[in-house]
């Protein structure tokens, strides 16, 4: 069975750990990796008129930058090590999009790291891990 492992990846140390964890499991099961990078974005945020004007341009630049940053590092590493990997870069809410991507690619699991914010911080601002536990359509592993 060649399942897909969706990994929430933002370049941080913890997301790196999550990736390593997922790669190990994927290797054992003959699965593949879907590297999901989410640019946090809300369509209900407020921008000035000049930011509106440049939004399309900025978005293109941000996508290019993210793509470059990810593909130039981890994706090449993974491919070199013989692990099939696809990348998905999207704008939106991290937890929502990880669920959506998992559904789209028919993933067997979502793997994310955690940034170790304090309990009170998570309570006030919410956490990706917390939201995923509640809403993930497939089993979800949170790598400490």
């Amino acid at each position, binding site marked *: 069975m060649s399942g897909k492992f969706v990994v929430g990846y933002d370049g941080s140390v913890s997301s790196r750990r999550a990736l390593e964890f997922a790669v190990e499991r994927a290797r054992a099961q003959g699965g593949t990796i879907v590297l999901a990078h989410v*640019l946090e*974005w809300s*369509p*209900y*945020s*407020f*921008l*000035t*008129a*000049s*930011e*509106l*004007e*440049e*939004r*399309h*341009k900025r*978005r*293109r630049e*941000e*996508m290019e930058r993210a793509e470059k940053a990810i593909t130039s590092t981890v994706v090449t590493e993974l491919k070199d090590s013989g692990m099939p990997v696809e990348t998905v870069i*999207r*704008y*939106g809410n991290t937890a929502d999009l990880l669920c*959506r991507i998992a559904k789209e690619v028919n993933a067997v699991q979502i793997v994310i790291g955690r940034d170790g914010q304090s309990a009170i911080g998570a309570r006030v601002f919410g956490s990706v891990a917390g939201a995923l536990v509640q809403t993930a359509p497939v089993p979800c592993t949170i790598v400490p």
Partner: protein
Amino acid sequence: MTRYAFPAAAVGAAMLAMPAHAQSVDEKVNQIFANSTGWFVNLIFSNFPGTSFPWIVAWLVIGATVFTLYFGFIQFRAIGHSIALVKGDYSDPNDAGEVSHFQALATALSGTVGLGNIAGVAVAVSIGGPGATFWMILAGLMGMASKFTECTLGVKYRNEYPDGRVSGGPMYYLTKGFAERGLPGGRILAVMFSIFCILGALGGGNMFQANQAHQQIAGIVGAYPGWITGVIFAGVVFAVIVGGLKSIAKVTEKIVPFMGILYVGTALIIIAMNADQIGWAFGQIFEGAFTGLGVAGGMVGALIQGFKRAAFSNEAGVGSAAIAHSAVRTKEPITEGFVSLLEPFIDTVVICTMTALVIIITGQLVAGPDGNYLLNEAGTAIQTVGGTSGVGLTSAAFGSAISWFPYVLAIAVVLFAFSTMISWSYYGLKAWTYLFGEGETKELVFKVIFCIFVVIGAAANLGPVIDFSDAAIFAMAVVNIIGLYFLMPIVKRELDGYLSRLKSGEIKKFE
């Protein structure tokens, strides 16, 4: 009197307390300006012969009525769809990260919600009586159709540059739309629009705002020279528009909507506190709308004040909003038209009405034993409890129910003024680059001029300058609405095409 031709300017003049040392220079500047621009102000704000009805108000209201009828009361038919669009029901998830309908609407609103909603309404109610509220709401509802027309065109004829930036507004639809229909004169109208837009941006969108912000701050901390406020404001504006200091803009963007909600929320609380008076207040509004309730000018006086306030507050037909709305990411220009018609609704029908209701319900207007309102000594406005007018009247009305609210209101006025300035700096810049072309140096020249005018606006009592710039804003409407009359068949075509595809299910919600 020209003073009453533009109430907000009258408020400004009434509220100004000038530092003595600037008086002579100030008077000189006033004199020079008044002499050279007075004819223009008089032309724009002149009344129909034998009446006190400014033709520019009739121009805006007739325009709004024509668009309302031409598009078959689109503002009532489409409002449900407008809300669905703003919520993002019809937005492609793959376009996430692009400008959403909500963002375009919010940015346009931050340019219009401001002093007009707080000070202007107070002037309208104190001169025209509670009945002015009725006409204001009516004009606000009609204005929704003007916005719909201009913002659809703004998106349809915007410029999209290879680097991904988007630029739109009346100057572009006047040029391209007229050319497309084979009509002459589009370019001339566009140039005229741009000139008026630059003047309006420097005046009503800048000096007037800076001036009123200074009055608010001085009202709390005590009188001090206006140039100090001016320099601080100019510094902040400079940092945002030239330095690209996004963080300040980001903070304001978050606080301004919050202030707007706080303002409406507080108004609702005050209205709820006086729940037993609601019936009476609406009675006053309806009765006053048709009888005037003894107010100077009677029913016609109420009507003029209401129409004026709505037109001046929501800028429907002026063309400014079309600039802000045109950056939205959509394949269908008409969708932004649907979204933009919510703008006069929120600005006038909701926020302005709240101000009026609070003033009426808290009993700020003094009535005589016969139920008619008493006029002040000059006979120009209704007597108020504390003899207040303009922002002062709104402040007193809120303060009578919640004692500390005037402080919050002062902060709100300053922030609204700031966000209006940022928005208009952009509108002015777009007109500037239309005339002189794009380029960093050219843009920098305008931005520096804009910042200098912030200081001038805050420092001096430049009544005639402000009158002039207000006249320029409404001159924008003259040019813009002429254009809209010629281009409205294009909007009609877009509308019919879109609605039939919506009905057939070709356009459907995502998810």
